[in-house]
C-alpha cells in the first residue's frame, strides 16, 4: 500500500527512471494501481442486530476529488521549486515526442528540462528523449488511457526535476480521456497535425476547451493534404475563445521559434511570481 495516497499496489502502472549510470529500464519496484483490490472482510461481527435498517447519506462529493487534491499537491511542489510543468496532449502520432526532441536539442544550455513520458506499453518515447541527454521517467499505464495526478506524484519522486526547470509531461496519445485529469500542470498544450481532420477540435472539444495552447504540427505537409488550416483554427477558437495557436513543422523547423518564445515567456512568468 502506498503511503502517499493509500492506493493498493497489486500492479498495473509501472515507473522507470531512465538512468544514466545504470542499466536502461531498471524498474523501481514501485508498482501501483488504482484498482482497489476488492478485498472485503466477510467475517464482520454483528454484535448487535440491524435488520433492514436503511439510511440515506448525503455525499455531495466530486468523483475526481481525489485526483484534484493530488493535482493541487503536485502544483504546490512545482510552484515551490519554480518548475514550469506542461501537459502535452494529442491523438496518437501528431508529433509530441518529435516536438520534445527538437525543443530539448534546440534549447539545450538555455533552459533546463525534465520529461515524464506516458505510454501504454513501450519505452520507445522515453528512449528517444533520453538520447537528447534529458532526465526522463517513463510511466507505463498498461491498459490505462490517460495519466492521472497520482502517477505524476510518484514519477516526480523518482525524477526530481531541478528547480527552475521546465517539466514536459507527454500524456498518452488519446484526445478523450486525458482531458478529465488535472495533473497539476501549469498549462495544457494540445497538439494536432495537418494529417488529421480540420474538425478535430469539434470532435474532441473537451481537450481543446481545457488547453491554453494549441500547436498545429506537420505544416510541411500542407501542400499534400486537404487540411484547411484557417478552418481548423476557427474551429478551435469556437471551442475555446482563449486558446493560443502556433503553427509549426518539427521536420522543417518552421514556426518553432514561436513555440520557443511562448516557452520562454512562461518561464519568465513563473519566475516573477
Amino acid at each position, binding site marked *: 500500500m502506498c503511503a502517499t495516497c493509500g492506493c493498493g499496489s497489486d500492479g498495473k502502472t509501472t515507473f522507470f527512471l531512465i538512468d544514466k549510470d545504470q542499466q536502461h529500464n531498471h524498474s523501481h519496484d514501485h508498482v501501483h494501481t488504482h484498482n482497489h483490490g476488492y478485498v472485503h472482510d466477510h467475517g464482520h461481527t454483528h454484535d448487535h442486530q440491524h435488520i433492514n435498517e436503511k439510511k*440515506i447519506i448525503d455525499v455531495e462529493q466530486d468523483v475526481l476529488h*481525489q485526483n484534484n487534491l493530488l493535482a493541487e499537491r503536485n502544483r504546490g511542489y512545482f510552484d515551490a521549486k519554480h518548475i514550469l510543468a506542461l501537459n502535452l496532449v494529442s491523438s496518437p502520432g501528431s508529433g509530441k515526442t518529435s516536438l520534445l526532441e527538437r525543443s530539448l536539442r534546440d534549447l539545450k544550455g538555455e533552459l533546463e528540462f525534465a520529461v515524464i513520458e506516458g505510454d501504454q506499453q513501450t519505452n520507445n518515447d522515453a528512449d528517444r528523449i533520453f538520447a537528447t541527454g534529458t532526465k526522463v521517467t517513463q510511466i507505463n499505464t498498461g491498459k490505462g488511457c490517460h495519466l492521472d495526478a497520482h502517477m505524476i506524484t510518484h514519477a516526480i519522486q523518482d525524477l526530481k526535476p531541478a528547480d527552475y526547470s521546465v517539466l514536459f509531461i507527454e500524456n498518452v496519445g488519446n484526445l478523450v480521456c486525458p482531458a478529465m485529469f488535472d495533473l497539476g500542470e501549469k498549462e495544457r498544450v494540445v497538439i494536432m497535425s495537418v494529417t488529421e481532420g480540420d474538425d478535430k477540435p469539434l470532435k474532441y472539444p473537451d481537450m*481543446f*476547451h481545457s488547453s491554453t495552447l494549441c500547436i498545429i504540427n506537420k505544416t510541411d505537409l500542407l501542400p499534400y493534404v486537404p487540411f484547411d488550416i484557417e478552418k481548423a483554427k476557427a474551429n478551435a477558437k469556437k471551442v475555446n475563445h482563449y486558446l493560443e495557436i502556433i503553427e509549426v513543422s518539427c521536420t522543417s523547423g518552421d514556426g518553432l521559434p514561436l513555440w520557443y518564445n511562448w516557452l520562454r515567456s512562461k518561464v519568465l512568468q513563473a519566475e516573477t511570481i
Partner: protein
Amino acid sequence: MHELSIVMGIIKIAEDHAKAAGAHSVDEIELDIGTLSGVDMESMEFAWTQAKKGTMLNNSLKKVNSISAKAKCLDCDTEFDIKNYYDACPVCGEHLISILRGKELKVKSLLVS
C-alpha cells in the same frame, strides 16, 4: 475508457461513506452527471456492470441525474442552453461564453443498509 477510472472512483467514494456509516450494502446511489462532464454514458454502463461485482454496490440501484449544460455569453450576458462547447450565443452569435453548469460529476447521495 476513462469511464472505468470514473466508475472505480464512484465505487470507492460510495464504499468509504457506507463503511463509515456502519452499513454493509449500498441499496441506491444517486449521481449528478453534467452533459459536458466528458462521461460517455454507454461506456459508463459497461464499466459499471463490470466494476461493481463483489463490492458493496453489487445490488445497488443507480440513479443518474443528467444536468443539462448552460452557458453565459460574455459579450451580451445572455444565458442559454448548450449542447457543445462550440455552440454560439443565440442572440449575438459570439463564441465567447462561460460555462455555468453541465460539468458536474459527483456522487450525490446513498441509501445504505
